[in-house]
């Protein structure tokens, strides 16, 4: 869409007349005029035409009214894709809206249809931005959005973006969106936290707390009510039971029953006692009667026994006397026999003693003989021993070992052989004397024998009488005689050892030793014969015999005769002993009989004594028997009487046990009733206390109240939940809508904006965060600059650029829209404005731009299509 002309009549300062701006072309169109010329009025009228329904009487429409009154009329010619149209709107009186085809002049639409037509132009579809893009003096879209006191970093960083975003949102209703969202969030976050949990201290959390508190109270109270009702039920049951127990009839019935049972029990008890007494009496009488009978029977029997015993004692006494005399006779006979034995034995003993002494004397004599013999033997033995000792000593000197002799003999033999050999090798000399010369030659003073060979060993000096001394030398080697010397040494050593001078002496000694040895053997034999057990044994025997010989030797009579007498006496003893033994049984028998008789008598006597003590004096016995008899009769009668009494009582005996059991049972029933009643009273007291406490605190009422309050609190919570759900939903919807609007417009706009920024600020680079679309940094002259320090001029320029970017976006979308700038660059310096103009011109190749400005001089440099305001009067 493009604007080609704008006309207004009766608008603000143009009361009663109108102005027209005709010939608005493509590209940049500039309307510069001094202030109060009506530029802004034209701007507002254009805005009203597009955005205010003709029926509106709203504030923005009221502002259009001229000071002098009248009905504002606005008309615009546009060129759209499908033709050229004239849009007309009149407000207030005669309000109308029309769309005519400029080509045909035909009325295309009016009233609401015209509004719809216009709406379609500006809307570009329900979701699109307005079809006109506006920038007003000083209106950068920054200030309003940065309301609130939270100047956080994010807010600061937002500022620049906001100038972009704000413009976009200004076109898309975003400011209201922000307010509504903030209202919605304000309400929502009063109730919940950022994570949508009930906010502590908030009304929602309060309601939940209240509900939970009431719910727990309700549970507690319900249980108390249950307890109370149970207590009431229990009390009712207890009371019923107590009433039952305490009913007078019941109580009286129990008392009467006990009284009756007590009476029955007492009667049974007294009868039972009487019976017991009668029984005891009867038993006693029976015992008495029985004793009397026993006494009488005993007395009578004793009496009879006494009689019998008296007779027996007489007989027994006689028998005992006989036995005693018999025993005496037997004793006498026995004594006699024993005396004979004693006599014989005495005599025999005497004889035996005599005989013994005689034997002893005989033995002593033999011993003396023997002693003498032994002593002689000892003497000889000692002599023999002496000779043995002597022989032994002699032999010890002489004795030579046969081996030594044999060795000596061997050595001797060797020596002979050696000498013989030496003899054979020695030089010899022979002197054959001239007759008489014999003995003139001597060797060592000894005359040398003539006519015989004389050998010599080493040298020989022959003294030849009268002649001189002739020395002969053999000159034999020194070792020639060594063997002989050795043999001689060996022989001499053996001889020394044997203590003899020669082998012959040794052999002689050996022979002597043999002789002595034989003599020794003989001496020894003799000693052995004399003292075969050795001398000591012999001496001991001599000592023994010496002792035996010390007995006094008295020898009287002839032992043989004595032995005969002794034998006779022994025989006599045997005979006497036999006789005595024959007598012994008779004595024993008599003694036994006597003892038996005596014992029998003693028994009888004792019995009689016992009976006597039992029976008392004989004189009183008759009277006593009579008394006993009388007592028996009397006591038997008494027993009969007592028994009869008891027998009479017996059948009438009551069952005491049963009566007692009955009584006990009835008493326990009554006691149980009393106890139960007591227990019930206690229970009731407890229950009363409980119930009264609960009832007085009206627990049921409180419970119901709590229930109702709980219902209300739950409803409150539900209401808050629903409120939260609604607010959450609304917030989500708003945020989603805003975010999609951002996605739809903001991102593309930002990407359109970046090259424009490059046009205007060659020394600045601006970075946007791709995700948050927040400005990341502004870098100018190589320095990072704080965003909030951006000047008003820069903000304003950014704002214009944003619109241009937006318009460029729409144009690219095939929906070109005019950009209208009303005194939009008031803060910008000349240099910047020129750059801005360049930017505008660059953009204007693709779209229509209307610039209203009061800065005539500055904007002269803008160039473009210069517009004029002309007086205009509506045709109709």
């Amino acid at each position, binding site marked *: 869409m493009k604007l080609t002309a704008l006309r207004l009549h009766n608008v603000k300062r143009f009361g009663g007349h109108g102005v027209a701006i005709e010939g608005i072309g493509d590209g940049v169109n500039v309307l510069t005029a001094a202030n109060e010329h009506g530029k802004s009025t034209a701007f507002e009228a254009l805005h009203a035409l597009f955005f205010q329904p003709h029926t509106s009487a709203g504030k923005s429409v009221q502002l259009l009214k001229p000071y002098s009154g009248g009905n504002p009329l606005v008309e615009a010619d546009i060129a759209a894709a499908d033709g050229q149209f004239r849009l007309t709107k009149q407000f207030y009186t005669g309000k109308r809206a029309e769309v005519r085809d400029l080509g045909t002049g035909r009325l295309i639409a009016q009233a609401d249809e015209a509004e719809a037509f216009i709406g379609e132009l500006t809307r570009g579809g329900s979701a699109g931005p307005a079809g006109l893009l506006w920038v007003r003096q000083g209106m950068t879209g920054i200030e309003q959005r940065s309301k609130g006191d939270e100047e956080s970093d994010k807010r600061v960083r937002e500022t620049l973006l906001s100038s972009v975003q704000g413009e976009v949102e200004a076109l898309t*209703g975003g400011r209201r969106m922000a307010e509504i969202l903030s209202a*919605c969030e304000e309400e929502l976050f009063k109730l919940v936290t950022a994570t949508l949990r009930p906010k502590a201290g908030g009304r929602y959390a309060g309601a939940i707390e209240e509900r939970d508190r009431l719910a727990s109270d309700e549970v507690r109270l319900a249980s108390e009510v249950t307890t109370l009702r149970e207590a009431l039920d229990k009390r009712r049951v207890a009371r019923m039971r107590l009433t039952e127990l305490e009913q007078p009839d019941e109580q009286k019935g129990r008392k009467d029953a006990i009284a009756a049972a007590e009476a029955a029990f007492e009667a049974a008890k007294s009868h039972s006692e009487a019976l017991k007494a009668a029984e005891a009496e009867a038993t006693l009488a029976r015992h008495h009667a029985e004793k009397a009978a026993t006494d009488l029977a005993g007395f009578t029997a004793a009496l009879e026994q006494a009689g019998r015993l008296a007779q027996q004692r007489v007989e027994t006494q006689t028998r005992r006397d006989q036995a005693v005399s018999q025993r005496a006779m037997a004793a006498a006979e026995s004594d006699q026999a024993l005396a004979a034995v004693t006599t014989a034995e005495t005599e025999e003993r005497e004889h035996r003693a005599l005989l013994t002494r005689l034997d002893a004397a005989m033995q002593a004599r033999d011993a003396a003989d023997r002693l003498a013999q032994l002593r002689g033997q000892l003497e000889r033995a000692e002599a023999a021993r002496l000779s043995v000792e002597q022989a032994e000593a002699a032999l010890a000197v002489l004795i030579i070992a046969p081996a030594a002799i044999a060795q000596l003999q061997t050595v001797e033999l060797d020596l002979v052989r050696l000498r013989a050999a030496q003899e054979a090798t020695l030089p010899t000399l022979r002197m054959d004397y001239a007759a008489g010369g014999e003995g003139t030659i001597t060797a060592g003073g000894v005359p040398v024998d003539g006519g015989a060979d004389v050998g010599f060993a080493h040298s020989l000096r022959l003294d030849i009488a009268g002649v001189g001394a002739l020395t002969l030398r053999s000159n034999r080697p020194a070792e020639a005689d060594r063997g002989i010397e050795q043999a001689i040494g060996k022989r001499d050593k053996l001889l020394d050892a044997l203590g003899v001078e020669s082998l012959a002496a040794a052999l002689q000694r050996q022979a002597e030793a043999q002789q002595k040895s034989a003599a020794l053997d003989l001496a020894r034999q003799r000693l052995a014969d004399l003292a075969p057990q050795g001398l000591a044994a012999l001496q001991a025997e001599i000592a023994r015999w010496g002792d035996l010989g010390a007995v006094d030797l008295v020898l009287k009579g002839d032992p043989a005769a004595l032995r005969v007498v002794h034998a006779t006496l022994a025989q006599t003893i045997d005979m006497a002993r036999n006789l005595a033994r024959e007598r012994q049984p008779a004595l024993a028998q008599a003694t036994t009989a006597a003892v038996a008789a005596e014992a029998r008598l003693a028994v009888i006597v004792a019995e009689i004594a016992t009976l006597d003590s039992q029976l008392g004096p004989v004189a009183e016995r008759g009277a006593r028997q009579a008394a006993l008899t009388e007592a028996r009769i009397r006591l038997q009668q008494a027993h009969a009487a007592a028994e009869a009494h008891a027998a009479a009582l017996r059948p009438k005996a009551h069952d005491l046990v049963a009566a007692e059991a009955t009584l006990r049972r009835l008493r326990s029933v009554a006691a149980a009733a009393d106890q139960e009643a007591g227990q019930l009273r206690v229970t009731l007291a407890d229950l009363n206390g409980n119930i009264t406490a609960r009832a007085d605190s009206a627990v049921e009422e409180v419970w119901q*109240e709590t229930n109702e309050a*709980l219902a209300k609190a739950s409803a409150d919570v539900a209401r808050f939940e629903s409120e939260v759900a609604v*607010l959450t939903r609304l917030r989500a919807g708003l945020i989603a809508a805003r975010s999609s*609007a951002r996605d739809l417009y903001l991102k593309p706009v930002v990407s359109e904006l970046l090259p424009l920024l490059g046009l205007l600020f060659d020394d600045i680079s601006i970075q946007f965060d791709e995700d948050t679309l927040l400005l990341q940094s502004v870098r100018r002259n190589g320095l990072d600059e704080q965003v909030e320090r951006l000047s008003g001029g820069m903000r304003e320029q950014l704002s214009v650029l944003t619109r241009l970017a937006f318009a460029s976006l729409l144009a690219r979308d095939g929906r070109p829209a005019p950009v209208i700038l009303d005194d939009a660059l008031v803060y910008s310096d000349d240099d910047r404005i020129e750059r801005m103009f360049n930017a505008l011109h660059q953009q204007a190749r693709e779209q229509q731009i209307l610039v209203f400005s009061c800065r005539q001089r500055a904007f002269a440099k803008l160039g473009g299509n210069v517009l004029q305001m002309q007086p205009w009067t509506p045709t109709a």
Partner: protein
Amino acid sequence: MQLQLPARWALCEAMFRFLHSSDLHLGKRFGNFPDDLRGRLREARHGAIGRLAAQALANGANTILLAGDTFDTETPTPAILRQALAEMGRHASLTWIMLPGNHDSLLADQLWDAARAAAPANVVLAVTTAPIDLAPDITVLPAPCTARRPGRDLTDWMSSAATPEGTLRIGLAHGAIQQFSEDTAASDVIAPNRATLAGLDYLALGDWHGQIAVNERTWYSGTPEPDRFKHDRPGSALLVTLDGAGAPPQVSAVETASFTWRDLSLELLSGEDGVMALETLLPIAVDRRQTLLRVMANGRTRLPARTALLAALDQIAPDFAHLEVNADGLATDADAADLDRIDRSGALRDAANALLLESQDAARSEAEREIANAALVRLFTYCEAIAP
């Protein structure tokens, strides 16, 4: 039971007039109301005794039959009980006959013990199924509730209770009648024709809080002081006149209520002005301070109308003792023009469109649709609040 009654009763042998009431529910706490109102409601229940007495005296009745549920719980506070009995005793010329109901059944022996102990001479506790002779020819046959749910027809005994010929027989009972029964077992209810079966001249019933005639001789008096919105009738008692045995009773209602509980049903059509409808329906003459009002809005409404209606209700709420608004049944319609009031285009309009679509999306759950709808209404409200 033979009562010592004033001698003048004998004079009016042919005619007997009494007040029939029930369900005073003394001590009820109204936990679901704000504290201050709670106290007033509670006090109003106690006040019903005095108002009953006043009506009896004004209408020449000497006897007041209370057909059960005089007390709300089995264990009212001593203050509730004593003050109630004392208030009855204060009107010494009246005889009060108090029947145990299901809320204050005979199981509540704590209550009845205390009542026996504190009852003034003119209060008769009808706690046994024995005839109460008010006069030689006037007998009340009470059927006290033995338990919360007795499980049998307690009025059964009235049919076999013999009275001398010509005696006025008045039944007094508490419980449901078969016709009203919805879920209780048949054995639990009072035979609706008990009056005929037992030859009663009148059967005074309690339990149902609304006033209703079961038949010519059988009535529920309803509560003298309503305690809920359910019955939507002013609290009243029944003035009953019996012109002799067998004669049809003359029954008329007398007002006794202090508070009015009103249910106001707003049935709206889309495009209808809810505020106008409300103003038309709002009771003008009533004492709003003594009125608890529940507005049930149903039907359909446009977005702005709904906002306006709720604002109007907010406006009048302080006039009333209590105002409860239930607009759950009020569907909200929104058309393009309504949405234009939010925004003609842009993100806000997108959000509104999305919410509207969601609220009409049959694929979504009822709850989701309602939330979406409510969110839309809220968005609308915000937009109205924030100048465009």
